[in-house]
């Protein structure tokens, strides 16, 4: 590890180089950003496919153990990424129960880890959204004698703006985490290197321009996600859809 002896000028120069890397669309940088997006967007899609129906079910159904399910769902929201990484690693490693799949150190392993990380977030947040909506609609739906499937369908559709916000929150968490992808992906160049693991590596190598360039893209993404959330809310409010 290089000593942190950068002067202010060095940092300013690194920043200038970083900006030019971003603006010139440096091939390595683009490759890393694309892989990050592919992994985290896929994980978000899978987490939504699991978490939304689960959240909807817990929101409208009354069953024994529902209280426990709520507590577990909420607790899992705070799973530390490194712990998720470790658990997935233990399953996918050669000696692990799923070792024969040969998935360790592949993008698929990273998708699995991020999915496990954010599916509870999607489930717990969408449960809250849908339960509030259901409280409001329940009597009207009972009067209309809708089936359970019709109720869930209507809730998902009417909660669509809030649920998109939930999905974006999940994506934001996935794309910014470093612990899980580092452990199960291994940060292999051209294969499993994503923005967060690359930033950690480049910084420790002293390659500040690349680290900063990736940092800029990650920040821009975070800003973009927040702007999207804001825009969604504003458009929902305009139509009184919240």
């Amino acid at each position, binding site marked *: 590890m290089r000593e942190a002896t950068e002067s202010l000028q060095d940092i300013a120069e690194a920043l200038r180089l970083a900006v030019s890397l971003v603006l010139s669309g440096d091939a390595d940088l683009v490759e890393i950003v694309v892989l990050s997006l592919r992994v985290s967007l896929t994980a978000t899609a899978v987490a939504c496919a699991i978490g939304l129906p689960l959240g909807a079910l817990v929101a409208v159904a009354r069953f024994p153990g529902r209280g426990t399910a709520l507590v577990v769902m909420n607790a899992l929201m705070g799973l530390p990424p490194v712990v998720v990484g470790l658990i997935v690693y233990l399953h996918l490693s050669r000696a692990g129960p799923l070792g024969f799949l040969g998935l360790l150190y592949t993008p698929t392993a990273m998708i699995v880890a991020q999915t496990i990380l954010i599916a509870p977030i999607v489930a717990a947040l969408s449960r809250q959204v849908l339960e509030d909506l259901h409280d*409001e*609609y329940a*009597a*009207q739906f*009972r*009067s*209309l*004698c*809708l089936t359970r499937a*019709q109720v869930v369908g*209507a809730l998902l*559709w*009417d909660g669509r703006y809030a649920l998109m916000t939930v999905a974006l929150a999940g994506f934001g968490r996935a794309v910014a985490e470093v612990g899980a992808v580092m452990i199960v992906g291994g940060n292999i160049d051209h294969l499993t290197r994503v923005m967060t693991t690359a930033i950690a590596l480049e910084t420790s190598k002293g390659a500040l321009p690349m680290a900063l360039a990736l940092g800029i893209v990650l920040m821009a993404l975070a800003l973009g996600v927040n702007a999207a959330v804001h825009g969604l809310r504003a458009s929902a409010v305009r*139509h*009184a*859809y*919240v």
Partner: protein
Amino acid sequence: MSDAALPFLGGRAGAAASPRAPLLPMRARGLTLRRGGVAVVDRIDLDLGLRGCTAILGPNGAGKSLLLRLLHGLEPPEAGAVTWNGAPASREVTARQALVFQTPVLLRRSVGANLDFVLRARRRDRGLRAALLDRVGLGDKADRPARLLSGGEKQRLALARALATGPDVLFLDEPTASLDPGSVLMIERIVREEAERGTRLVIVTHDVAQARRLADDVVFLHRGRVIEHAPTDTFFAAPAAEAARDFLAGRIVL
């Protein structure tokens, strides 16, 4: 009124072709519901005949809205029971009725989509939408977000949605409470048309003159009890109960 003028009620003719048992008369016996330790619906006996319009009158908090919910089968009574033509309350019975709530709950969609949803869910003809909207005077607002309608427009949309299910029994909880005079006439015309077609109507109202105009019989509710149930003329000519006399005279009934 001819069938052609009300094309969306064609569903009823279809139902008659495959005869279902009539839903009425309704018999409620000993209906009781407690809220916060108080019997807010208290051992109510009530009969609804085959046809016509029944008005439920009574001061705020008398239990009118809760009584409608019990009759419609939205919640089970703690004691007593409702039977419809001898059959106990059931999902099938509720499905043949509609309730327009005191505060309408509309979906977060356009006006037209609110009706589409019900027509689709209840497997009714989607083509009924335009006629329903015209009937409640919302023909030009089909694409507006439903929740941005004015209070009165929301109530009219809620009525259209109730009619969209083609109900045999229609419960209306203060359907004209926030409507302008023109809209009140529109709703009252619909109530009359529905009654003529054989829909059984039960309407909660604070508008005494409206009860006189629309109702065949009046139920006066007070503190969760039916104080009086009489034909409209009898009730207004000489209310038997003192609470009803005070209510009609505009005195505060406690």
